[in-house]
Structure formats: C-alpha cells, structure tokens
C-alpha cells in the first residue's frame, strides 16, 4: 500500500513544485517506486521542472474522465528508475477534479507504487483541498517570511480538519515542515525569520531547511530536479530532507553562517 505525500503551503511561489520534484526524485533514487502528480490543473508546471513537457499526451483529468487509462498518461522519467509523472491538464480548471475521481486514480496508483507525491496548487480552495484530502504525510513548505508562515499555519489547520484522515477520525496526517529559500546571513542581520521562530510559531517537526541557491533556478530552467545536482547545497539539503521523511536522523546543514577561512577571505570564495 502506497503512502500519499502532499506538498502544500497555502501561499504561492514558495517552492512547492520544486520540492515535489526533488522529493519524488529523491524517493525514487532511494529505490522507492514513486509517482508525482501535478494537482495544479490549468497552471501546469511540474512537467517543466521534471523536464518532460514534450512528452505529455494524456493528463490527470483525462484519466479521471475515463478518456485515457493510467498507463497511457503516466510519463516514465528518463533519468531515474521507479519514477513516474502524472501531469495536470493545462486546458481545464480545478473543478475537473472530483473526490471520487481522484480517490479512484490514487487507489489504482497505490497498487504498484510505494509513494504518491501530490504537488498542491496554492490557495485554500477546491484544488488545494483535493490535493491534501487523501494525504498520509504532509510536507508544509514555508519561506522565512511572515505571510508565508501565516498561510502555512492556515493550511496546517486545514490538514487537521478537512482531510480524509480528520473526517474519518483516523490517525492524523504526519506533518513535516520544510523551510525553503533560507539565508543564514540575513537571519543573523535580523531581516529574515529564523528556523527557531518559524518552528515555534508553527509547532511542526522540521524535516529540512533548503538554502537560497542559484542551483534551484538553474535546475528549473533545464528541467532537472535540483536533487540530482549533488554538488549543490540545495540538492544536498533536499537529499537530507528525503532521508528524514524516511525516518533517518540527519544533522541540519546550511542553517548557520559559514565562517570564512583565511584563503576564501583573500580570494573571495
């Protein structure tokens, strides 16, 4: 039976799709059979980040409406084994998703996958609710600034009250906090929220801190999940995050200002 992970945030532009792509790829790299679904119907992006935009024939909505079967719509990743992408429809809107339809597709996917990663759209409307409804695990993506933290707080409330697990009175969704675009230098200067203040406000266990990194934009533009860039700080931080979601203990990196050594001070490294 597969575990369903929703990557959510409330606020837009904080890195949900980047995170979905990285976590799904990371899980597949660890040998887990993984599928990542784009729930952002009408604003399809995941296919670009995953670099499979030219291979989309059928999409999620086609499968729900019975116009295609799952094996026709799933796109197999060319770089990593065990990884599939189910793209969103670009021509429909979020009302195309029904609870029954989504539930049926997820049930089918659960038969032969270990993890189903749901890339939620921004907001708290129907599309976002649909993405989180069936979740077992939530990755709450937050930027270190007040509006993002407040929106995450709101979405955590939704996870705890509007999800399938909440409605049926089952064990609650397992929550993981992921802080993205973190700049320790700015935190030290006092113009960015620290990891400590964010975790204190949200009271959710921390699964990862992704530093602000040029590698993310570069990876997005060439359609390569940043976790595959193992040289980059962001890629390594995502690999740590995946390990923590799988229950491993990892020390947090990239959260403190690095002391510049003698040589790098001279050469500006």
């Amino acid at each position, binding site marked *: 039976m597969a575990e369903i992970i929703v990557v959510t945030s409330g606020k837009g532009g904080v890195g949900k799709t980047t995170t979905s792509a990285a976590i799904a790829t990371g899980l597949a790299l660890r040998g887990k059979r993984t599928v990542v679904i784009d729930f952002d119907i009408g604003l399809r992006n995941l296919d670009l980040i995953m670099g499979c935009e030219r291979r989309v024939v059928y999409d999620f909505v086609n499968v729900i409406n019975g116009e295609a079967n799952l094996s026709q719509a799933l796109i197999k990743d060319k770089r990593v084994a065990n990884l599939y992408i189910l793209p969103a429809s670009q021509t429909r809107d979020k009302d195309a998703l029904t609870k029954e339809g989504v539930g049926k597709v997820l049930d089918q996917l659960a038969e032969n996958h270990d993890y189903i990663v749901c890339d939620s759209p921004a907001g708290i409307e129907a599309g976002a609710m649909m993405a989180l409804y069936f979740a077992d695990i939530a990755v709450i993506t937050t930027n270190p600034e007040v509006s993002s933290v407040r929106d995450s707080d*709101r979405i*955590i409330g939704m996870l705890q009250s509007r999800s399938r697990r909440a409605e049926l009175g089952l064990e609650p969704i397992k929550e993981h906090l992921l802080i993205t675009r973190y700049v320790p230098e700015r935190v030290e200067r006092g113009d960015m929220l620290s990891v400590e203040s964010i975790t204190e406000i949200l009271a959710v266990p921390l699964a990862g801190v992704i530093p602000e990194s040029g590698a993310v934009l570069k990876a997005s533009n060439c359609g390569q999940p940043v976790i595959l860039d193992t040289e980059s700080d962001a890629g390594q931080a995502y690999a740590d995050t995946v390990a923590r979601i799988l229950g491993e203990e990892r020390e947090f990196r990239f959260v403190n200002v690095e002391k510049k050594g003698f040589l790098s001070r001279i050469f500006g490294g």
Partner: protein
Amino acid sequence: MAEQSIKFKGTSFTLSVIHIESNAAMANLHTFIADKVAQAPAFFKSAPVVVNVANLKGDIDFKMIQQVITDNGMNLVGIEGCQTAEQKLSVRESGISVISNTAKNTATKLVPSADIKPEIQTVIVEKSITKTIVHKGQIRSGQQIYAQDASLTVLGNISAGAEVIADGSIHIYGALRGRAIAGAKGDESAQIFCNKLDPELLSINGTYILSDAVQSQFINTQAQINCINNKLEITKFD
C-alpha cells in the same frame, strides 16, 4: 467638599433562591424550610435568601413568608417573580424589596407612579458560568473556537489570525498571538490568562484593545488581563 467616602456601586452576588411551586405549598412552608435548615444548619445560618413566587396566584401573604424565613434564622433579601402590579405593591407595603431577574423578560413592566418611592434595585445573578471547555492543541490561523456559556482553556498556542471566544474567562497554556474575546455575552469579571502575550486583539465584556495598545513590557510575558471600569488592565504573573 471633602473626598467622597461613600459610593454606590452595582455588584453581582450568587444567592440561594427558594421557589414556592404552588399556593398549596404555602401551608407547610415553615415545616419544609425547617427540615431543610436542619440538614445543614451552618450553611443556612443568617444566609441571605430570595423567595421566588412566580408560580403563586392571587393574594400572597408576604409578611408570613418573611416571618417564616426569619424564624428559620435566615434573612429575606427580597421577593422575585411577582406576576402582577398588585403583588409588587403588596410586597413593598410589607417592607420587602422586589427583585427582578434581568435574565428573564418579565411580562409586566414597572410603571413608575407618584406614590411609589424610587428605590435602589439590586441586580442579582442567579446563574454564574461554571462550565469549562478544554481544547487540546494549537489553534491555527483562520480557526475560531467559541465556548458558549463556558470558560475556555487552551493547551497550545493561538496563532496569529486565529480567534478564541468565551462567555466566561480564557486560559491559554501557550502563546496568544491571535485574538482573545472573553465575557462575550457581557461579563466584566471575565479574565484572560496566557503564558506568552503577543495578541492581535484583547477583549473583555466588549471593551477591547489592539496589539499596539499593549505596553511593550508585557509583550511575550506571562500575563493576566482584567476589565476594570471598562478599561483593560494587564498584569504580569510569575
């Protein structure tokens, strides 16, 4: 003129009310009350009581009621639940106060007349809020909790953008970053307590202040908020 040393103030008390359910019960009123007093003499000794006559009809011997109460060692504060203007007049003529319970809408309205002297009316609240609703866990932005006719205890933080409301007091074992509204149906004695004060809004009995009115020395401290003379007062407690 010298400084005022005598003041009139309205205050609420909880009193025992003796309900007489029928005219027939009047006959053995003395025996019945004597039996009750015998069960707990210390409790009833010099106790102030109110007698409710809402279920009695016609002429009532209020002097007799007062005598029975006094004979049993209690003090009659007043008569509640008079149905007619005649009954009220009769109560006053017996030298007893008429008490109107503000919680109920009485059918008859007091018509001021020249021969009835104005008197100070005491408002007596029979019912006080004793119920408590306990919420475990953080209250998130956008969530709202209302403890109707009860006090509210929260074991967790109140996030910015969240709202807790109670008709009684509010106790927060955590940080208050959202809005807290106590005494929502009107209760000046309601209070707010929290482990870490950083609120968006505080309100008791309809009097409210916004975050910028909270003095900086109280921010992020353990605090208690009272409503005194329609003004919110914050104090630290350790």
